[in-house]
């Protein structure tokens, strides 16, 4: 017997704003635009929306991020569900999960889930938008302060240390990290929304400057101003709506915790492993049945470790798995088919989510993957600390 909530809700609307170095708009402005586009796309009237879930991105923690007052900016009245959520890069998938649960509990009918961010400012670098850690006059108590003293700043450092651990344990190579960057860029070439569309070679990858070894610039995601919104509706309603419904078959989360002590390996065995069990069990499928992967790719390494933890290959074999180009256009396992966060745009978990919806609907244009029955969509946050995922399908069952 299949899971009672498998296929019980669907993504019925998608809105994507302009992306990248777009100035003069606040993250709330972007959020409003994305919701307008998502409602147009779904065919729903604003009055039919009764739930709103919001994720603020990095500007949420820097002040000035989109807040609960988005409800008023959108003129949404008498909502039955409202929250401002943050589990970092896993939030987008989580919002869709909670929307699905709320709809099936009868708490709401059409829930808008929106991510918006605007960390880029004119005349400042991408790195400055995200890497301000350590510049505070408050001296932390205990050894946690030693990270800054050692020069440990931002997510780049955490992922470099995680990737290095994987490379040392399993022989993962710089070429294998580069293969992820090259494959994703090949997809981005055919995505008019992508910020980076020039094809790259493995040589270009190696020649890109070091950020923190073993991560080159081309191992790291972009930073973007913009917003993405999706609408979640009940399956009964979804089948008669404007767009082909994208049914939610599976939902899972995994948050392993990091004891920073011997015997744990959060750098190389992530929350994806925990989420995989739940998401595949609910969907009633396994990795061999997945046609398309839309994986959170803040760094090339994240893709490799996520593929391992979902069982597409064995632990430690992710590098060899991606090296032959199977993630790219025409490859055996099309992955991050819009260019991902590395080459298209960085909207946290809404980057993989938006492309998963496009592919499941069959609206990918020249980058459309022919077989799109099952799409795995993942979100990851912190330094591999927080994970959530969905299995999506154009079929209700």
């Amino acid at each position, binding site marked *: 017997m299949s899971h009672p909530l498998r296929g019980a809700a669907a993504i019925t609307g998608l809105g994507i704003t302009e992306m990248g170095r777009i100035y003069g708009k606040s993250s709330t402005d972007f959020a409003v635009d994305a919701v307008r586009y998502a409602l147009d796309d779904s065919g729903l009237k604003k009055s039919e929306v009764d739930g709103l879930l919001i994720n603020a991105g990095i500007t949420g923690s820097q002040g000035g991020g989109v807040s609960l007052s988005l409800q008023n900016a959108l003129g949404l009245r008498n909502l039955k569900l409202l929250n401002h959520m943050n589990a970092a890069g896993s939030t987008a998938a989580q919002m869709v999960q909670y929307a699905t649960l709320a709809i099936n509990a009868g708490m709401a009918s059409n829930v808008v889930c929106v991510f918006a961010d605007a960390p880029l400012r004119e005349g400042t670098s991408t790195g400055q938008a995200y890497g301000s850690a350590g510049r505070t006059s408050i001296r932390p108590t205990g050894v946690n302060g030693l990270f800054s003293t050692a020069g440990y700043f931002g997510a780049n450092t955490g992922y470099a240390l995680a990737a290095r651990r994987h490379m040392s344990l399993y022989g993962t190579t710089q070429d294998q990290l580069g293969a992820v960057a090259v494959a994703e860029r090949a997809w981005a070439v055919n995505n008019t929304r992508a910020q980076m569309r020039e094809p790259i070679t493995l040589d270009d990858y190696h020649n890109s400057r070091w950020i923190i070894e073993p991560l080159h610039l081309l191992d790291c995601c972009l930073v973007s101003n913009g917003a993405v919104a999706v609408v979640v509706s009940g399956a009964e309603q979804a089948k008669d709506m404007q767009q082909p419904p994208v049914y939610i078959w599976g939902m899972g989360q995994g948050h392993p915790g990091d004891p920073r002590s*011997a015997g744990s390996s959060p750098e190389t065995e992530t929350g994806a492993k925990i989420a995989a069990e739940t998401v595949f069990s609910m969907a009633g499928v396994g990795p061999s049945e997945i046609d398309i992967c839309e994986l959170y790719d803040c760094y090339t390494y994240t893709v490799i470790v996520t593929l391992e933890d979902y069982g597409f290959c064995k632990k430690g074999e992710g590098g060899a798995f991606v090296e032959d180009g199977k993630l790219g256009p025409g490859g055996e396992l099309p992955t991050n088919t819009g260019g991902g966060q590395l080459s298209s745009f960085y909207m946290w978990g809404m980057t993989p989510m938006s492309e998963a919806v496009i592919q499941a609907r069959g609206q990918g244009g020249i980058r459309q993957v022919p077989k799109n029955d099952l799409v795995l969509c993942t979100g990851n946050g912190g330094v591999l600390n927080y994970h959530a995922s969905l299995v999506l399908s154009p079929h209700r069952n």
Partner: protein
Amino acid sequence: MTEEIVDKPLPSPSGFAEPFWEAGAEGRLLLIRCKSCNESRVPSSEVCPNCLSVDFEWYEASGLGVIYTYGVMHRLYHPAFEQDLPYNLVVVELQEGPHLPGNIIGIENDALRVGMPVQVVWQKYSDISIPRFQATT
């Protein structure tokens, strides 16, 4: 013309971890042992993350460990690190189990390896001594 000297971000020598910093100034590494579950930890919190007990004791650790992972930073995030670029940073797995972040001194960055044996050395700043590491032979 004067050049602005920017200090590296430093932890506070006061608070519950004071014995750790005091011992460090004498070149000794102290760790916390939970009196309820016996787990060792570096002083990151007063509550044991394993069993949530607040009952703990300090003990002197070997100061020995191995490189658990490392990176070499090329990008400037903080002005105090300008002279250091490119600099290494490591996480060391201490012989007693807990992980401690730091830098390896006295070594070429290209010579760093995961699993390399290291020992703690203490470097004195204005009001606090900071644990760093060097390779043992």
